[in-house]
């Protein structure tokens, strides 16, 4: 909403500059997007001039050489390109130093060899109109002056400041009107706010005196067949209308408010809308077939050609205004081409109607058609506003279009519901705000906002004015009105008394933090990926048709195909980030993400299952290269497993892996991760074809877990174990087993045979050598730790366990212990 201050000041003029007024409005609930200057600058350089002579420029056919009285003795020589310049005209002159609306400064210049000491101005050069065919003539010397211009001889004296004659420049507040305040979509509504916010007096509304009358109108009628969608329809008829340009002051206000002037009647509808917030539409009554308008729901597929020349196809939820020949307007949104006013129009039917906001919103959305009218009507204006606008329009039709208003006013629907009265309790005001606003102050504020106020036992009885009917319906709404004008900056800063509330993270939230910390401590950087993925991700990950992760949920209205589905795995995000970093020069990429994936779930339909996953990828050096180790080992499945085991051990969850693959993994270097026997994720190296699709030729190792599933198994409170009072006995053995026996199996056998005394088993070497170990065999070096909690073990006890282990390996796995 653009509010030219020059216009606002007609109704309320606080002694504040634009910025200070903007600040005050911002602190009382009307946000100011920006403050603009509209029009010219250096106003003292714009003067009234009288053309004394206008002759041919000796060097140019189309230019005139003029001598212009600008009030300071010697006439100025000005070169003028307009065809309509004549001696005797009173004109608008910009002198050197004038700042034009586009910000440039006018200088004395030579035009075709002759000096021009300024410029005779056309309307558009002042940005107070769009006319450029000729100069703006303030008085042509025969006493004819522009229609409606209230000019007298004194102000038209040569040298008089032009700003006294025309609204040359104004500051403009660009306001952000919140959706609850459609009353502020007009200048007068903003003036009410300014009055309440600053205390500056508010002028009378422009609709207090009505030149029109009530009652039936001869020769025109209106019927509303859908009163639910059209609460009020008002119309007046004007005869002897003379279509022509609007006066400069009106054009200037429209321009500053962002509307293009067109012709007096159309400009009046726009001007009144900008002033009162109520859209109007002018019909050429002679083009209304049957001189009767009918408001009804459209028929499915019904077509109407709108003012912009396009044909719109309607549905039965949309409302049309029709005459005997069919639809002429889309109600509340845009007028039709068939009945619009034209240069030969002499009789006008002026419509100002109230519409159902949600319905207008839908129509505008469905048709992709927004207008100044629809953007106001969809916010739900009040029926009273229709007649107010009608009154203002009547004044202007008489004054600016020379029209006669025909007696009567068509009024279908009438005013809105009776105003409601709400009790505003003192205790509730202070109870909600945490500060006292005295009753007297509350009353003062509400009266300034045009609420009716009466004293009650415990507060005030407040009557809501019609233009606030939709917004203020409850006591809490009144408290907001009082609080915003009284000033929220006066509230104290206190803390809630918090009856028994204590803040903490849940175990699951703590676990997520610990997991992220553990991975970061191992050198992985955390990423935050998009929840959106492209539909081809499933193919790129080689997921088969029956894989649940293929069933990614699709958005109805994605911003692009690449972001049209919701991810079912973190792997896409991680590989995207890996590729991005490699493309930007990183050779070592160690990343993890902790975040949700989105899975279709019958149990939660129509919502989804959103488990929190943890994923990681490692590419390149497993540890940082240094001058001593310039070529460290590359990350592989064991590097990923190392990172994974560190965090699962920290969480004290019982876990293991088993050989199993995923479609996107290297079939020989992949595993399923099990926690307490349940599969919770995968571990391995990404299949080279998949990695290649993300432009990675090196090994990509990684894992992904359902962290929610892991969290369910995380160890609770750790209990003390005495491991310091008695020493443990360590023994290294080399176990030879057939190649193909998993290390996990060997350890399981050793553990069982080692019994309670065997505290730990760890693989520290793996060795294959046909000569020394045997063909088809593998040697695993194990470090065994034996311990008893209440005494030191003897050599005999350890030897017995060792013998039992050897026996078990032989029996269960066909293995043996190799001599050290």
């Amino acid at each position, binding site marked *: 909403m653009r509010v030219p201050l020059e216009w606002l000041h007609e109704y309320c003029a606080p002694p504040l500059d634009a910025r200070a007024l903007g600040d005050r409005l911002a602190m009382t*609930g009307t946000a100011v997007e920006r403050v603009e200057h509209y029009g010219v600058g250096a106003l003292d350089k714009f003067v009234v001039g009288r053309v004394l002579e206008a002759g041919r420029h000796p060097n140019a056919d189309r230019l005139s050489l003029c001598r212009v009285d600008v009030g300071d003795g010697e006439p100025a020589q000005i070169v003028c390109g307009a065809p309509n310049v004549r001696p005797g005209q009173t004109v608008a002159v910009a002198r050197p130093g004038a700042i034009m609306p586009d910000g440039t400064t006018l200088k004395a210049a030579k035009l075709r060899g002759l000096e021009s000491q300024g410029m005779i101005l056309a309307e558009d050069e002042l940005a107070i109109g769009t006319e450029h065919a000729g100069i703006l003539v303030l008085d042509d010397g025969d006493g004819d002056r522009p229609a409606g211009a209230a000019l007298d001889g004194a102000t038209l004296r040569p040298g008089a400041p032009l700003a006294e004659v025309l609204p040359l420049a104004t500051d403009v507040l660009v306001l952000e009107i919140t959706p609850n305040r459609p009353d502020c979509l007009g200048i007068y509504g903003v003036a009410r706010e300014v009055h309440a916010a600053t205390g500056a007096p508010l002028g009378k509304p422009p609709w207090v005196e009505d030149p029109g009358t009530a009652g039936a109108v001869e020769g025109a009628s209106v019927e509303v067949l859908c009163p639910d969608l059209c609460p009020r329809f008002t119309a007046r008829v004007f005869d002897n209308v003379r279509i022509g340009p609007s006066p400069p002051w009106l054009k200037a206000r429209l321009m500053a408010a962002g509307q293009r002037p067109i012709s007096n009647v159309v400009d009046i509808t726009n001007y009144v809308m900008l002033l009162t917030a109520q859209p109007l539409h002018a019909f050429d009554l002679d083009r209304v077939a049957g001189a009767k308008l009918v408001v009804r729901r459209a028929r499915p597929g019904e077509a109407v050609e709108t003012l912009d020349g396009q044909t719109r196809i309607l549905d039965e939820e949309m409302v049309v205004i029709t005459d005997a020949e069919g639809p002429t307007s889309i109600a509340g949104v845009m007028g039709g081409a068939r009945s619009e006013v034209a240069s030969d129009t002499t009789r006008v039917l002026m419509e100002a109607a109230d519409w159902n906001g949600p319905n207008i919103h839908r129509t505008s959305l469905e048709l992709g058609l927004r207008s100044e009218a629809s953007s106001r009507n969809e916010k739900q204006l009040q029926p009273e506003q229709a007649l107010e606008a009608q009154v203002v329009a009547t004044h202007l039709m008489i004054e600016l279009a020379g029209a006669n208003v025909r007696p009567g006013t068509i009024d279908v629907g009438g005013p809105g519901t009776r105003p409601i009265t709400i009790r505003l309790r003192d205790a509730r005001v202070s109870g909600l705000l945490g500060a006292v606003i005295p009753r007297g102050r509350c009353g003062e504020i509400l009266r300034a906002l045009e609420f009716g106020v009466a004293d009650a036992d415990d507060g005030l009885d407040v009557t809501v004015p019609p233009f606030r009917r939709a917004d203020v319906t409850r006591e809490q709404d009144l408290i907001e009105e009082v609080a915003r004008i009284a000033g*929220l900056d006066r509230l104290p800063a206190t803390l809630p008394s918090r009856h028994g509330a204590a803040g903490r993270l849940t175990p699951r939230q703590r676990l997520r933090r610990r997991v992220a910390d553990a991975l970061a401590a191992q050198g992985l950087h955390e990423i935050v990926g998009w929840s959106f993925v492209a539909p081809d991700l499933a193919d790129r990950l080689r997921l088969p048709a029956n894989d649940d992760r293929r069933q990614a949920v699709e958005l109805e209205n994605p911003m692009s195909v690449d972001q049209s589905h919701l991810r079912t795995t973190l792997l896409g995000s991680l590989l995207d980030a890996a590729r991005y970093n490699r493309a930007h020069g990183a050779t070592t990429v160690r990343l993890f993400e902790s975040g*949700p994936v989105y899975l279709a779930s019958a149990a939660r339909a129509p919502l989804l299952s959103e488990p929190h996953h943890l994923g990681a990828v490692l590419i390149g050096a497993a540890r940082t290269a*240094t001058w001593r180790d310039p070529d460290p080992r590359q990350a592989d499945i064991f590097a990923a497993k190392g990172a994974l085991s560190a965090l699962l051990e920290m969480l004290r969850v019982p876990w293991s892996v088993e050989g199993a693959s995923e479609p996107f993994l290297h079939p020989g270097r992949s595993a399923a991760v099990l926690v307490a026997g349940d599969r919770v994720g995968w571990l391995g190296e990404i299949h080279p074809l998949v990695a290649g699709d993300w432009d990675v030729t090196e090994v990509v190792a990684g894992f992904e877990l359902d962290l929610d599933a892991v969290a369910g198994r995380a160890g609770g409170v750790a209990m003390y174990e005495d491991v310091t009072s008695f020493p443990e006995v360590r023994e290294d053995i080399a176990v030879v087993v057939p190649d193909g026996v998993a290390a996990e199996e060997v350890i399981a056998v050793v553990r069982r045979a080692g019994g309670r005394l065997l505290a730990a088993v760890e693989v520290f070497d793996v060795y294959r050598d046909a000569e020394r170990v045997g063909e088809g065999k593998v040697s695993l070096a194990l470090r065994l730790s034996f311990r008893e909690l209440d005494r030191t073990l003897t050599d005999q006890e350890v030897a017995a366990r060792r013998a039992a282990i050897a026996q078990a390996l032989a029996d269960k796995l066909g293995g043996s212990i190799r001599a050290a």
Partner: protein
Amino acid sequence: MIDRIGELREQAQAAIAAAESAAALEEVRIRYLGRKADLPNLLRGVAELAPEQRGPTGKAANQARQALEALIERRAGELVAQELDERLTQDRVDVTLPGDPLPAVGRLHLLTATRREIEDVFIGLGFNVAEGPEVELVYYNFDALNHDVTHPARDHTDTFYVHDDVVLRTHTSPVQIRAMELQPPPIYIIVPGRVYRRDSDLTHTPQFHQIEGLAVDDDVTMADLQGTLLAFARAIFGEERKVRLRPHFFPFTEPSVEVDVSCFNCVDGVTADGQRCPICKGTSWIEILGAGMIDPNVFGYVREYGYDPERIQGFAFGMGIERIAMLRHGVPDLRLFYDNDIRFLEQFG
């Protein structure tokens, strides 16, 4: 004879002192104390001396031998230390070469780090951390939050739809309703999480993060809202900060406010070097979040769970984590958060 012993002793002492290596010292030992050396020979010859000479001569020879042995031992110790020093001195490294680091530590994403800091402030103020679904019913995302059926946020141009009645949540606010359905008042929660809006430009990404706050009790006031947000603003932006509540409109709060924090980068909009402050744009205030007292209509949706709008009241607020992180760390472009460039990531966390 005794003279001869004295002579040998002096010669040997000089030789020990002169020995510059373990090998040379051993040579000296063999020369003076070895089996064929003069001093042991003298001792063996004592028996052949006249009886009155045997005592003094033997004693002198023994003393000489013991003294020399002690000297050799001491000299040997000196030489070991000396040789170790020489060896260590030669084992010299270029101490200016770079260190050999333990595995490099990775970083938490700036959004995670910021979220944790904010969470910790509110946990300290007595709030719990709640969560809720990102794919959400229109009922929770709009209806129960008192959004008019024409509210533009409902449009397909603004909000991602999965079905007619299912959207990607556009804010963390629906968790307000879900939390109140699960627990009667008093309730003090914050809700961090991903949210989605159909917007993509310099200052908008279709996915971003919010933290919602909700406090409902029988006596929570707007002044409490101000105090709570003041504590938050000071924890995150510095102890000198002030906050101001600016009236605004949101469908689910009444009164509604936008909250500004006093600029941490300037004084009255002017930076230390006299420039117009780029962070607050010269206004000395920075908008950080939206808030308000919960609209009675919202309580109307959860009345049956113990939320009678005549008996209880509360405040709610919502902030963008990206915005807080950008302000605080001077991040100029929202999209940096989602590029996940390691050179960006490792600056924070």
